[in-house]
């Protein structure tokens, strides 16, 4: 697509960078992104390293694999041991370490039946092909992924499949942002809002954050120019003292989001509490099966429960996810914990902050 080329044009990027420098005169901007794809895009494009020192980039809890809680990992690993269960999952979860050091990959090596799928829809075929087994799809992901799982559950009901279940581990972004902002230690001064989550939820859910906490927030795309424009808009709003939510990714995100996807989402699910790695329970930040779809709830139908479990020893993913600790400050970073031998989920996932820091060999002092 030719329009993408102009979003990578070095001269245009330099022009926006110059405007950021001008807008930053006499002020600071500690902005947080909350999308794993933004994390990677900021590093890979070099934008992170080009920003003036007064702009501090914090990585937030935007990697769906990373925010999946130890208790959730323990629950699906327990289920994977059952003879009558086939786990269907996105590949991202395969290497995530559980509290006892296990993982889906290890479970598979020990004989557990696990199918990696590209789409939740593909898990329906697994259910049809294995009528004598219970197929459990691991429903991770934010508001972008949750509707794809909801649409799949709906199809399962339409097709009368009684051996397909979902473990709803989904997380909702706005309540997490609210939780982060209500912690004064965070000192966040701007949010780069996720592009594809916003394509579903629209701008409305973010508006209370801008109004309640006075934080400028910009929905951003993933090209270098998208990222720079979002930072410029945040800096400019802060300078003018006019915090609001701006949609700078209109080629993909409609201000009203995607009402049809939301209707399907809230037909199958209803809001509930959710556990976040490093943060704990955030009220109303998760999704549970609605009454009409209860038979598809793996927790209910298969008698699984979330249990308290010990956190991974030494792993500081929780603090990394909250933006309190840069990955290279974790004592395990690049020593015991590397992409080849990951200890925590932020190093396992390609979208995790630790993996991104490691891959791009950043020489980062705290706060930059």
């Amino acid at each position, binding site marked *: *697509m030719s329009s993408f080329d102009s979003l990578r044009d070095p001269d245009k990027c330099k022009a926006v960078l110059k405007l950021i420098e001008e807008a930053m005169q006499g002020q600071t901007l500690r902005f947080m992104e909350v999308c794993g794809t933004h994390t990677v895009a900021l590093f890979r494009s070099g934008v992170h390293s080009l920003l003036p020192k007064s702009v501090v980039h914090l990585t937030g809890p935007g990697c769906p694999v990373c925010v999946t809680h130890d208790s959730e990992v323990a629950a699906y690993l327990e289920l994977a041991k059952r003879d009558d269960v086939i786990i269907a999952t996105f590949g991202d979860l395969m290497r995530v370490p559980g509290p006892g050091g296990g993982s889906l990959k290890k479970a598979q090596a020990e004989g557990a039946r696990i199918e990696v799928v590209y*789409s939740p829809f593909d898990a329906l075929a697994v259910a049809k092909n294995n009528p004598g087994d219970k197929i459990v799809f691991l429903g991770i992901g934010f508001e*972008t992924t949750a509707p794809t799982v909801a649409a799949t559950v709906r199809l399962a009901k339409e097709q009368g499949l009684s051996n397909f279940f979902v473990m709803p581990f989904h997380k909702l972004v706005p309540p997490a942002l609210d939780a982060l902002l209500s912690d004064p230690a965070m000192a966040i001064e701007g949010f780069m809002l996720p592009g594809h989550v916003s394509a579903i939820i629209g701008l409305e859910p973010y508006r209370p954050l801008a109004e309640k906490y006075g934080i400028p927030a910009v929905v951003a795309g993933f090209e270098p120019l998208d990222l720079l424009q979002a930072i410029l808009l945040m800096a400019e709003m802060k300078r003018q003292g006019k915090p609001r939510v701006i949609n700078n990714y*209109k080629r993909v995100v409609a201000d009203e989001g*995607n009402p049809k*996807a939301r209707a*399907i989402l809230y037909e199958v699910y209803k809001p509930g509490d959710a556990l976040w790695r490093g943060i704990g329970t955030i009220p109303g930040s998760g999704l549970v099966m609605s009454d009409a779809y209860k038979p598809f709830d793996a927790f209910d139908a298969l008698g699984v429960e979330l249990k308290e479990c010990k956190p991974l020893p030494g792993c500081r993913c929780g603090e990394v996810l909250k933006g309190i600790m840069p990955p290279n400050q974790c004592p395990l970073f690049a020593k015991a914990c590397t992409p080849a031998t990951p200890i925590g989920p932020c190093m396992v996932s390609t979208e995790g902050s630790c993996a991104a820091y490691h891959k791009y060999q950043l020489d980062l002092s705290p706060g930059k």
Partner: protein
Amino acid sequence: MCLAVPMEVKHIDGDVADVEIGGVRKQIRLDLIADRPQVGEYVIIHAGFAIRTLNKEEAMETIKIFQEGWNLELI
């Protein structure tokens, strides 16, 4: 896993479409979008489902903000 990519619609059959990018062809579902794309339009795909038809007019609106606010020629 939150990577969503724009792909060109090649063929539509009910709730299923064939889409393509850079020679890679995929079959995806259209359950989640109200604005049905035409063949030749682009959709954003996430986990096997189209989540949004790309909108050039709205994209131009953003570009206008930068042209008017900072005199930046982005096209």
